[in-house]
């Protein structure tokens, strides 16, 4: 009985939140990794591009709500995602045409492109703040919980409740669907294969007749889809605040590098690695041990390795350790 309670505790406070957060990071990390693999630069505008896409979703949600359109128990934001994706892709293609393509054709070093992406970051951040403002916005509607702690306790009779928010379920399901489609696309279709070839060896790919412009365009389109979905899911689960999105860029980078940059599957798993590490190390295990250990051995302290203030620091430390001991990332990306 105590054993099951302890497991439930972990499930409620560690596994479900970490899976959700990890999914959100994973989408962003695949975005970073794709841009890095195919366009060959570290995109510092990642977080702000995600907030740009989410901004449209938020605005459309408010508009649809005023029209009375909704999805019943599902959040309205889900219908707005396709529209937001279209706007996001348009913005990305515009930015690519007016900013990035010049440096790509000139074959500038990656550092210069990274600097340029900082310019894009400033502009995107300004646009988001001018259009929607820097404030915290919640745009979740519909049913909030799939399973409430009190209901769960009543049904099962355990001491520990299990809460599953609808946003957590939605996040995990949508991420799995999107990522499966993406891997199917990259591995099975001709376009996907040509993208991988281009990422692997640009010259050889060009020699075999792959159109670079098309590859770049499709990369931005996929990036737009990933950025918007990742951003909206994060916003639904927590809330939409431009500054937070900018900060999220850091764990996303960490996830992409830990997974092996340029390797989408690595980035996907890297997101979960970072999320689990952050939550596992900053969780207070006191209650967990109280369930498991006999009374004499029960701990007095919180049994917390690091306080939650250091959540971000954990993921960065992991990144530093990975860079030191396995610079290609856990799942063999490029050599850095």
């Amino acid at each position, binding site marked *: 009985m105590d054993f099951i309670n302890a497991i439930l505790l972990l499930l409620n406070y560690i596994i479900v939140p970490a899976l959700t957060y990890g999914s959100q990071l994973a989408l962003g990390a695949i975005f970073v990794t794709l841009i890095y693999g195919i366009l060959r630069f570290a995109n510092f505008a990642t977080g702000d591009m995600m907030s740009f896409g989410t901004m449209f979703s938020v605005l459309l949600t408010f508009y649809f709500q005023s029209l009375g359109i909704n999805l019943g128990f599902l959040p309205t934001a889900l219908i707005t995602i396709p529209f937001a994706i279209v706007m996001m892709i348009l913005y990305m293609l515009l930015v690519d045409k007016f900013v990035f393509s010049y440096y790509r054709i000139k074959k500038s070093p990656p550092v210069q492109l*990274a600097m340029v992406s900082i*310019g894009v970051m400033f502009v995107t951040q300004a646009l988001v703040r001018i259009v929607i*403002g820097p404030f915290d916005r919640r745009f979740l509607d519909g049913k909030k919980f799939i399973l409430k702690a009190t209901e769960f306790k009543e049904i099962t009779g355990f001491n520990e409740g299990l809460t599953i928010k609808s946003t957590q379920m939605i996040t995990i399901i949508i991420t799995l669907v999107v990522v499966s489609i993406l891997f199917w696309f990259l591995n099975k279709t001709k376009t996907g294969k040509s993208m991988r070839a281009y990422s692997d060896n640009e010259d050889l790919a060009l020699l075999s007749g792959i159109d670079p412009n098309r590859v770049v365009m499709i990369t931005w389109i996929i990036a737009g889809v990933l950025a918007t979905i990742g951003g909206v899911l994060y916003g639904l689960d927590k809330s939409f605040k431009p500054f937070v999105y900018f900060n999220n860029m*850091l764990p996303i*980078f960490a996830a992409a*590098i830990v997974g092996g940059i340029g390797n989408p599957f690595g980035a996907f798993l890297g997101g979960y690695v970072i999320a689990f590490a952050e939550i596992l190390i900053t969780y207070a295990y006191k209650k967990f041990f109280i369930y498991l250990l006999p009374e004499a051995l029960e701990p007095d302290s919180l049994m917390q390795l690091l306080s939650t203030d250091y959540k971000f620091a954990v993921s960065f430390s992991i990144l530093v350790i990975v860079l*030191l001991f396995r610079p290609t990332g856990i799942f063999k990306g490029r050599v850095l």
Partner: protein
Amino acid sequence: MRQYANVISAYIIMLFLIVLVGVFQSWNVALTILNFCLISAVMTMGANIQWGYAGLINFGIMGYTALGGLAAVLVSAAPVKEAWAAGGFEMIICLGIIVTMVFSIRYTLKKIDKSKKQNYIIATIIIVGLILLRVISGPATEHIEAINPAKTGFLGGLGMPILFSWIVGGLFAAGLAYIVGKVALGLRADYLAIATLLISEIVIAVIKHEDWLSRGVKNVIGLKRPVPYELDLQNSTWFINLVEKFYSRKLELIQSLSEKQVVLNQLVIDASSVYVKLCLAGLFLLVVIILLIITQKALYSPWGRMMRAIRDNEEAANAMGKNVVKEHLLIFILGSAVVGIAGAMMVTHDGLFTPGSYRPMRYTFLIWVMVIVGGSGNNFGAILGGFAVWFLWIESAPMALFLINFFTENLSDTNAIKVHLINSVPYFRFLTMGIGLLLIMRYKPRGILPEKIIKQ
């Protein structure tokens, strides 16, 4: 002289702009802008040493700035005796443990061959050390933070003049740069950027949440100043006489004695804050000039030539027998130390330390915009970049307001779009910075004042 024409004209334009602000807004605002321009110039010089001289990308500027600020607190804040009594001893033991950990890790790295055994030993040292640290420091921090938490709740500093902290800040930053450099300098450019950015976030997290050290997000206020206080000035006769003499012509026009006194009082209040800012500006200018002389000498010395050679062709320089790794580490430390000095200067200027205000946008990316816009590899360019970009950063909000009013003149004042735009005026500075950076990168990729190689 001719080759310096563009440098001189650029600086004259910059000074003219600041004077314009003084005439049209107020001298107080103009001097604040000037002071921050000077501080930014020191930061850009630090970043320029790393990026312009050696091609090392450092996105951790925020971390070194914050360390400089921390140094200002630790040097100048008054020591809290009760806190030292409550937990000072334990904290010193913790410091000892950290030092022991570092040295024992170094010892293992040197004495034991690279193998699994080495890794296990290092891991054991770290884990045992961390557990010891937690056990000892846990209760001690609680005791320290419990002492008068509204006012102190930290160990306090050394109570020395704050000017010392400029040197100490540089040393702190150099120490951090040594560690970061050892860990991260082997990485390729864009990874170095990401790694330094993340490490600076860790530094900020530590400063924000270790309350016993510098009160964390509760901020340290009322740090001592190296210059007189406004209130003292307003009460000292020599200053009032000075102001009276300075404005004698204006005061003569006023007939009634009481009215004259009121005007004089107001003038004294204004003049006192201007005087304080001028004193600070003098100090900052001194630092900028000293650094400029040193960096110019370094840039055109054999050492500077070697750094450029390493930057332009690492393999060739290596083949010529230059120790690239060592030189990279050295320049990384030097540049970071300069940034640390700037961090201490900034806290000195404000008189308060607010860890919550350290954000990468303001302290890392903005500084990078300054370096790129000014001209990397050119010290005069870096300083100009600091001036120009900081000026734009401050003045783009008023300019945006002016433009919005100009273009929406035909709309009524209650028009939703106009109101919305006017409310979001502060964010136009990001737009200005971004577009400025993009334009410079596209059309003048080497900056306003590009690097000049003087052939001897």
